[in-house]
């Protein structure tokens, strides 16, 4: 036993000195930074698309522009409403037309000018200025409470940051040339009588995949045309608004006592967190078992095995290697957890910024983390036994790749099932898969949001432990012979024969080995 620990200690120390180990450790901060920063970068680099409108109706185009401004305005002040400054909204609604000319910078400038009391941008109408001045304190509070992430989010939702209306002479030839040269993304032709004829409109563009502009503009046009039709049938504005009102569904969950509670983002994160954990579980197990396989084959091709076997038994050697790499893997995983905790709990508190993805509530749940560690160990031990057994038969990685292909095919299943099980953690399929030992760790982790019944946890874990013992027993049988084999690795039939053959021991037993 002591020598097994010696072997695992050496294994651990050697792995800790490899580049792969540090790449593994540093993978987490890189992933975290990517998670936090990439969405912001994507938002900020998305360039605005320019479009033109030929308005044959002579009224629809300007109506649409007014509606666009209204919507932007509404987005902009959603946060105000969230801040319970609802009373402000009808007031602000009175000054709508003035903000239609404002882009993101315009809004920034406008707010800044009101807050500092400096001269407002020229584009701003007097009513807007006066109004903002009236509510200076409210707006200042609101603006100051906005995090950089929220501000970026806000500006991304302002349509004038995404789509820019171009002035034009009305000459279609020129517009077509501009589209071909790339200076114009698309142009719309609005029919002469959109209220009575639904045909007549056109959307001209060279880009057939990005339909954002078409959908967005089309929705607004439809809304206005519908309003106009309602008006022509003498339906008053109030009724029209009522007809147009959409039915909204509020997400409600039931807690353990059957009481209703509001669903917020934390709940959704908690529901999907197990899927994230499955992914990390999968990567960790894959990386570590692969490390074990490489290491076993390397040791075999380095001709070190025989020297080691003159001091320890094959089973001790195998156990030591599996243990040493388990220690390496656990070190990496613990460092990931610590880094994630620091990142999600520490960074917002220290720097006062809000992260676009807040997982602190998930990380604060010890049950999830604990099951992650337990399932890592169970899954790792199971696959480690399989791979070390198969790896012992091979002289190089190429041979090993052929031999472990069936194992790898099984390993893909949890990834394929990750999303379906995440959606319905207690489905019959998920329950059945929990009892298939090679899948148990992944599927049970996947189902954590369900959560599975305590009895399921107990039976699947027991089954898993039995499977691991069986896998170790088989692996030991193959390993003690395979590790000394040279030449072509055996086929599946020969491996089966290896498993069936009694292993001679200590000079007294009879029978044939190898």
């Amino acid at each position: 036993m002591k020598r097994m620990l010696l072997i695992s200690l050496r294994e651990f120390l050697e792995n800790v000195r490899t580049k792969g180990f540090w790449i593994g450790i540093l993978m987490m901060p890189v992933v975290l930074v990517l998670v936090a920063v990439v969405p912001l970068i994507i938002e900020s680099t998305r360039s605005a698309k320019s479009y033109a409108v030929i308005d044959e109706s002579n009224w629809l185009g300007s109506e649409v522009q007014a509606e666009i401004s209204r919507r932007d305005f509404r987005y902009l002040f959603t946060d105000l409403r969230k801040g319970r400054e609802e009373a402000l909204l009808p007031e602000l609604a009175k000054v709508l037309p003035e903000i239609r000319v404002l882009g993101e910078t315009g809004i920034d400038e406008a707010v800044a000018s009101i807050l500092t009391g400096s001269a407002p941008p020229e584009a701003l109408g007097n009513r807007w200025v006066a109004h903002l001045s009236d509510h200076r304190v409210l707006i200042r509070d609101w603006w100051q409470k906005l995090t950089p992430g929220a501000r970026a989010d806000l500006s991304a939702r302002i349509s004038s940051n995404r789509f820019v209306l171009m002035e034009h002479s009305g000459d279609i030839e020129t517009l077509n040339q501009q589209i071909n040269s790339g200076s114009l993304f698309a142009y719309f032709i609005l029919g002469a009588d959109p209220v009575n004829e639904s045909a007549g409109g056109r959307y001209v563009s060279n880009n057939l995949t990005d339909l954002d502009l078409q959908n967005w503009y089309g929705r607004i046009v439809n809304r206005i045309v519908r309003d106009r039709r309602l008006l022509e049938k003498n339906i008053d504005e109030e009724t029209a608004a009522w007809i147009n009102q959409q039915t909204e569904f509020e997400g409600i969950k039931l807690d353990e006592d059957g009481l209703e509670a509001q669903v917020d983002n934390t709940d959704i994160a908690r529901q999907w967190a197990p899927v994230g954990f499955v992914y990390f579980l999968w990567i960790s197990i894959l990386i570590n078992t692969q490390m074990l396989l490489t290491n076993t084959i390397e040791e075999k091709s380095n001709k070190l095995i025989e020297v080691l076997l003159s001091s320890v038994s094959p089973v001790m050697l195998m156990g030591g290697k599996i243990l040493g790499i388990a220690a390496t893997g656990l070190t990496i995983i613990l460092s990931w957890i610590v880094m994630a905790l620091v990142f999600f709990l520490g960074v917002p508190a220290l720097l006062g910024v809000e992260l676009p993805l807040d997982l602190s509530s998930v990380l604060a749940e010890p049950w999830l983390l604990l099951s992650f560690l337990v399932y890592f160990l169970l899954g790792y031990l199971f696959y480690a036994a399989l791979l070390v057994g198969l790896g012992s038969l091979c002289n190089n990685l190429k041979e090993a790749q052929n031999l472990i292909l069936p194992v790898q095919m099984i390993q893909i299943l949890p990834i394929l099932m990750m999303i379906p099980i995440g959606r319905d953690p207690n489905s019959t399929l998920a329950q059945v898969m929990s009892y298939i030992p090679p899948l148990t760790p992944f599927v049970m982790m996947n189902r954590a949001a369900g959560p599975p019944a305590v009895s399921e946890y107990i039976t699947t874990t027991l089954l898993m432990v039995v499977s691991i013992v069986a896998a170790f027993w088989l692996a030991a049988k193959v390993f003690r012979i395979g590790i000394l084999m040279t030449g072509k690795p055996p086929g599946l039939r020969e491996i089966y024969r290896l498993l069936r053959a009694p292993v001679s021991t200590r000079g007294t037993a009879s029978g044939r080995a190898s």
Partner: protein
Amino acid sequence: MNSIELEGVNKFFGHHHAVADMSFSVPAGSVYGFLGPNGAGKTSTIRMIMSILYPDSGRVTVLGSNNPESVKDRLGYLPEEKGLYKKMKTRELIAYFGTLKGLPWREAHSRAQALLERFGLQASADQKCESLSKGMGQKVQIISTLIHEPEVVILDEPFSGLDPINIEMVRDVILDLRRQGRTVIFSTHIMEQAEQICDALLLVNGGRKILDGPVADIKRDFEPTLLVDFEGDARHLDQPGVTRINNMGRKAELSIAQDADPQMIMQSLMREMTITGFSVREPSLHEIFVRAVRESAT
């Protein structure tokens, strides 16, 4: 007192009978050679002594124990194909093998340092193994085998692939171990090496023992050879006391019965024909081996 005894040991690999009914004993404190061509079963026999493999039948007794596993720590083994952990430092590696043989960590490190100094490798103690030359690597491997001061040292083909300087180095190590009273077993397919340093040996071929025993006894059992250069009628070569004639035309190799006197035979030959040169030789291990294999085959 014997360090190692094998009785009727058999080992199969599938249908291949790798070691067949092997029995021999290695006297304590001797240098014992395993001789035989490649594939004769030397390595399999060694692996059974080291309890890396287990015999399918028969008995292996090592240092008085029927359970060789229990005496592993008193044995040192250098396999034919051996490697080093490339990324480990030389001293660390040697000490690691020491601890695997049951030495306490501190003891293993101080012994590793002492042995490195004895082998003139103190400068490489903190270098990684990958930076060692082949000869230095060989020394490190030998030190790793000896660090726990084993009572029995088993070296599988220790001379293969070595240059003359390193062959001498390994030979000196073996002789030094004998001086210290340890038992050394080494296998080789080069007879001259065995002839130079072995006290006793085992000849194997095709998994079977051909013969074994002290070198002097083996040689005594085989007839000396008389080599003659001659002119004249070759029929005269057939003198009383000559058991076998290998006539090459103007040169002949005569095997002489053990009780016959080579001097007498020479005198009779010189009477009958012109002898231009002659020599009397003890049979070399090579000849003994060839003859024994031939005899065992008939």
